[in-house]
């Protein structure tokens, strides 16, 4: 995310089995500060072989051991292969830490419901997302290709969210006053702080007023996005 320091937050990845290993690969492509924790010796060994810098061998059911990792303010990613352990871990983490973001993978609608119930911030259902993708490929091939280009393919096109800094040229302007095309960008939607945390799609047609702290979600080339962000911070 441009305009925030979120990427620098530390990520603790719990579980380095079949699932955790793949999650690490995807995460490490984008983030550098990743710590791996697992209760199995061989998993830790494998992590070291894969080039994980910091890894801990801890008992996941031991709360004090978890506390010693220092959880607050971090992103906790639970990807244990055993789902019941995963749910238990999320519960432990939730009870120990108050201001961390807990993300968990899930393998069924039932587990997803349980994980959400005990307070995971984000639950990613492995099979649900796979099924969605399969159906999208069949029913909306063009859409899938476009989204693929944005998410998967490294071609410079991405979706970015930009928090409007104070005193920017956008302040007190309305959505329709700004032609994002001029900057080579497409505005997908915004989170208007005046109206709460909800994300509002621009296609809904409401003419929002921009304020500092609002988050814009923009689609475009990375260079255009960066240029736009620099402009926001510099100009008034």
């Amino acid at each position: 995310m441009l305009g925030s320091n979120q990427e620098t937050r530390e990520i603790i990845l719990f579980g380095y089995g079949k699932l955790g290993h793949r999650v690490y690969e995807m995460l490490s492509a984008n983030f550098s500060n990743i710590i791996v924790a697992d209760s199995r010796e061989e998993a830790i060994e494998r992590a070291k072989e894969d080039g994980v810098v910091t890894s801990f061998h801890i008992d996941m059911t031991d709360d004090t051991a978890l506390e010693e990792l220092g959880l607050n303010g971090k992103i906790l990613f639970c990807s244990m292969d055993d789902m019941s352990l995963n749910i238990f871990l999320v519960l432990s983490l939730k009870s120990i830490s108050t201001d961390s973001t807990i993300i968990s993978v899930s393998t069924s609608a039932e587990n997803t419901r349980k994980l959400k119930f005990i307070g995971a911030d984000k639950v990613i259902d492995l099979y649900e997302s796979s099924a969605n993708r399969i159906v999208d490929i069949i029913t909306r091939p063009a859409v899938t290709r476009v989204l693929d280009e944005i998410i998967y393919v490294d071609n410079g096109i991405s979706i970015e969210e930009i928090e409007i800094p104070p005193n920017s040229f956008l302040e007190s302007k309305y959505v329709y006053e700004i032609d994002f095309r001029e900057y080579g960008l497409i505005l997908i939607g915004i989170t208007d702080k005046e109206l709460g945390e909800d994300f509002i799609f621009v296609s809904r047609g409401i003419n929002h007023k921009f304020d500092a702290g609002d988050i814009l979600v923009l689609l475009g080339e990375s260079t255009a996005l960066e240029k736009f962000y620099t402009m926001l911070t510099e100009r008034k």
Partner: protein
Amino acid sequence: MKRLLIKYLVAFSYFLESAPRYQRIKRFFNDLLNNDDYPYKKYFDLFMVAIILSSVTILVIDVREHVAAWLDYYDLYIVTSIFIVEYLLRLWVHDDMHKVIIAEYEESEFFEKPFKLSKVFKEIAAQKWAYIISVPALIDLVAILPSYREIRVLRVFVLFRAFKMLRYSKSLLQFFDILRSKRVELYTLVTLLAFFTLIASVMIYVFEGNGINPHIEGLFDAVYWALVTITTVGYGDIAPVTTEGRAVSMLIILTGIGAISFLTSIIVSAFSEKLPEIKETRVMNQIMKKRNLNLVCGYGKIGQLVSKKLQEAGENFLVIELDPAKVEKAELDGFNVLRADATKSATLLKLKLCDNVKSVICVTHDDIINVFITINARSLCKDVEIISRCSDKSVAKKLKLAGANHLIMPEEIAGLLGAVYIGQPVAFEALQAILTQKRTARIDEVEIKLGSFLDGATVGDFDFSSNRLVLLAVLKRLESSDRKSHYIIFNPAEETILKAGDILVVMGYSVSIADFKGRLEQSVRFKSRNA
């Protein structure tokens, strides 16, 4: 003289063998009469059923009342003629006479021995005779008989016209197939029953046929009584009067109950054995009518979710699964399911992979099976879309080599989604909402049809934003390439020219997208009317 005859016969046979028109005509009639996949057979069948029903109705009415003369003529000449023509056609298409002649001629040439006319005739006769004495052919023949009204008893054969309907109904035919599968048991039972009936009737005749029982006047009465008793029907119009007669009665009543329960069990077991087959036929019949079929191979976790979502999206699909427990689950969930092995080419060929199938989705829990299904499908058809699941990276390469168009790796998707969420939580929620279509905003694709108002226009000609739409990208078809390949222009400039076949990817709320699609649709109709 005989040499000349043979010469002409052989020449004529070769002529038929090489005459495309003759072959075409014969194939047409064979398709019409025997090929269930032939689309026009359905109409022929309906026509024949209508003819039969009309004929049976006329004959039934005729029993007590007098029908109009023209109806009688219709029945006598038209229906009978149609039946005769049908009978002869079936006899004709049953096999090829000229092939027998050619085979014999070539054999005689090869071994340098004389061509034997008698052998050829014998073989042809044997082939035709085999058809004539087959049950359906006999029914056909007997069904022609009721036209000889002069012989009253032949009217009974009106029934055979009803039997003839069997030919035109698959499910009725299936019933006889099922019984045929148990013919050994049924034959045993019938023999047994005949034996007991014979014994019982002879015994009752010996005991009571000498005038003691006024109802038994001959052996026929005795047989009638025995059969009525042994089948547990027991009208009671003939009852034994002597102690010996009653003892015989008691014995054959017990035997009869045994025989009837035996019969019931045979039929029930035959049906339960054939049930999967009947279901399969039904599923196949339903599914083969549909085009653009998606095959969901494997009904595990992903298979189940995919099936559900495909149904919601209104796509045609068929689940293919080997595990009986999963097959049952799919049936309970209300999906079309075929119990078959998708790694076998016979399965995919049966489903007409190249003609009917849009995509093959390999989502079994086993990577290796997914690879096999992919290889199987790709080797049979080079155009079909193959989506395959795998969890191992090394398998992913193999799947690509095997010809999968898309790979689905659940763990990778999870990692990726996690990464996107950590980096950009708001954008992630937005994408998630778009992808799952849970909220009303969604991304959709709109193809520009030939002659619609955007065909030949530029992007700037349509004000997307005032129509509450966001144009994300245009997929332009590659020149001189197949339908499927496009290149993407993100955020297209105002002056980008749009052409028929281009696909617009727009974001908006369902209503806006529907409205936009509707407008495009309408403009096509308007133009074509004025053209």
